């Protein structure tokens, strides 16, 4: 039988490990070259760092009411103090944890659900698709904010997990629709048929054959969901539906608003957490934009189409 190797073959022999690293390396390279993505990554990295090392960075215990209330920013209290004498800066640092965690966890959960529902609907088709799409549509048309408020109310004192649950319940449907659309366009790829022919289970085909080719959209979905989560959590906490005794940017806003921080000379109490929320959200959004521009070349093969088909029966 003929061998089919042509020398010199410019392609290096690649072990799977190296290729994957190579792909990550190329992705990193692509990010570095794209200013939007770069800024987003840096912001996110900063927030993550702060969240992890909060105890080391925050100068004081955020709940300790040890200072002069409503003080202006000083060298002692970089952002001033609250109406009960707590250091705003320390609260901001500690609050990063909750806000970031909610964003990431809720974003992840919503993405996973939208993935499973959307892609399964598209791949399985038929009545399953009809049922899942109907299910998705119901959640899509529910008005999010009122629903969030009602659920948070009835769940009692909104804890960390309740907030996450509320966000996920109201947020997964949009992504599911998007992923379903993309999966619909991909389901006729022949390698999926090939997987069926060699005997793979449908569930395995969806998870291991189809989803890996959709990673860029899934990541984009996650980033969008995380953004939505950060903003929604802040919103819920701001109107008092979160646990007002926990430390987060949203609850800071709640207390600040309730004590009319703007009016009574401590504007930073509102501005600081608000700015952080905006920046974290922007970080996710920027990375998302950057991803769109990078597209898939770092990770995917280019597909050469020869258009040489005799017929299509």
């Amino acid at each position: 039988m003929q061998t089919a190797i042509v020398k010199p073959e410019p392609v290096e022999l690649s072990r799977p490990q190296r290729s994957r690293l190579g792909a990550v390396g190329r992705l990193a390279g692509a990010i570095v070259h794209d200013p939007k993505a770069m800024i987003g990554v840096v912001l996110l990295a900063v927030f993550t760092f702060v969240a992890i090392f909060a105890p080391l960075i925050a100068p004081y215990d955020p709940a300790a009411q040890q200072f002069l209330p409503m003080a202006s920013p000083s060298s002692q209290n970089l952002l001033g103090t609250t109406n009960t004498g707590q250091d705003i800066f320390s609260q901001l640092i500690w609050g990063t944890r909750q806000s970031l965690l909610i964003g990431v966890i809720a974003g992840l959960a919503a993405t996973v659900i939208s993935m499973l529902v959307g892609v399964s609907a598209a791949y399985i088709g038929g009545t399953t698709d009809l049922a899942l799409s109907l299910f998705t549509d119901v959640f899509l048309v529910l008005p999010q904010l009122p629903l969030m408020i009602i659920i948070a109310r009835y769940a009692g004192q909104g804890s960390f997990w309740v907030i996450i649950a509320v966000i996920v319940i109201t947020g997964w449907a949009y992504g599911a629709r998007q992923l379903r659309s993309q999966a619909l366009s991909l389901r006729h790829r022949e390698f999926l048929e090939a997987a069926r022919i060699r005997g793979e289970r449908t569930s395995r085909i969806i998870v291991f054959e189809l989803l890996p080719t959709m990673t860029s959209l899934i990541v984009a979905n996650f980033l969008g969901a995380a953004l939505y989560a950060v903003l929604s959590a802040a919103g819920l906490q701001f109107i008092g539906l979160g646990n007002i005794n926990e430390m987060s940017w949203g609850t800071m806003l709640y207390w600040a608003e309730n004590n009319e921080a703007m009016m009574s000379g401590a504007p930073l109490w509102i501005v600081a957490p608000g700015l952080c929320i905006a920046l974290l959200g922007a970080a996710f959004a920027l990375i998302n934009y950057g991803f769109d521009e990078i597209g898939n070349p770092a990770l995917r093969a280019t597909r050469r189409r020869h258009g040489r088909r005799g017929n299509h029966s």
Partner: protein
Amino acid sequence: MIDRTEPILEAKGLTKHFPVGGLRMPFSPQRLLHAVDEVDLAIFPREIVAVVGESGSGKSTVARLLAMLYRPTRGEIRYRGRLLGSLRTRRALLAYRRHVQMVLQDPYSSINPVYPASHGIFRALQLHAPHRSAREQRATVERSLEIVGLTPAAEFIDKYPYELSGGQRQRIGFATALACGPELILADEPVSMLDVSIRIGLLNLMAGLRDEQGVSFLYITHDIASARYVADRMFVMYGGHVVERGPVEDVLAHAKHPYTQLLLSAVPDPRAEVTVGPSSETGEPPRVVNPREGCRFRERCPLAIDECSRVTPRLRELRYQHFAACHVATRDGDAGSTGAWPATRTGDVGMSANGQHEGAHDARGPGVVYEGVWSQGR
């Protein structure tokens, strides 16, 4: 050469209709696309059967029905005597897939780009031979790669699809199908999307697999010349029907159905001397929706008679093991080919010098030079 024992796969009355059309007026009949109608087919061990046709002929649908990707509207398929419809458990289905595999047409979309190209081969082994150790599996994968000519296998095992050419990818497709140890491989236009000079290599591979590994093939193609090159028997399909079938050389030398003759007259051959006659408007293959009775080729057929519009012709044995579904051919008996289209060749198709009836013996006819070079005997 053909092992006339039990067929691996046998189809009777195989039919597949697809509903088409959008909004339907109430009380109007469902519009059905007749992709395949009443097809009988049998594939025996150690042979290559070609199914030749153009678009809309139903040939790819037949392959997909046999691969259990579609469920037939009517008719039955038996694998070694067992009805496919009776395979319900996952185990039974998996066992079937072990024995009957498939190679797809497009090398650029039939391999998942995310994984190394050998991923499919490994998965096939994990599904069909799960008891093997990782080392044994790797050895089997390497062996499959070697059989299809991707050597040294150790180099190819880790390559990603984008590092491979079209021909190499298609070989991976064959290796994946082979890894299961099948008796039959359904090859759906495996070379149509490859460059011409690469096709021969893969066709030789198929013939070699038949001869050395004893694997049978159902070779779906629109290229009748390549069908002649590798196949032992041939089916010609048009508009969902089988219009002619028989041993390859016989069908070529004594084509009975006007459509087969049309196909033969259109085969491009760079070496043959040809005169360009006046252009004949030969029309195009139909999209068969809610058809009436009658031959589906009648509108394009220069020999069509009244009966052709009223009665659907059935396959009749016109020569030894050579069947055709044509009223005119049946009526004219064995007086050579129907000669529907002027021979655009000097010299005849196939090997017989004239179109005369041979007699009920060797269907290959006298004077067929069958190079045994790549057919290592039975």
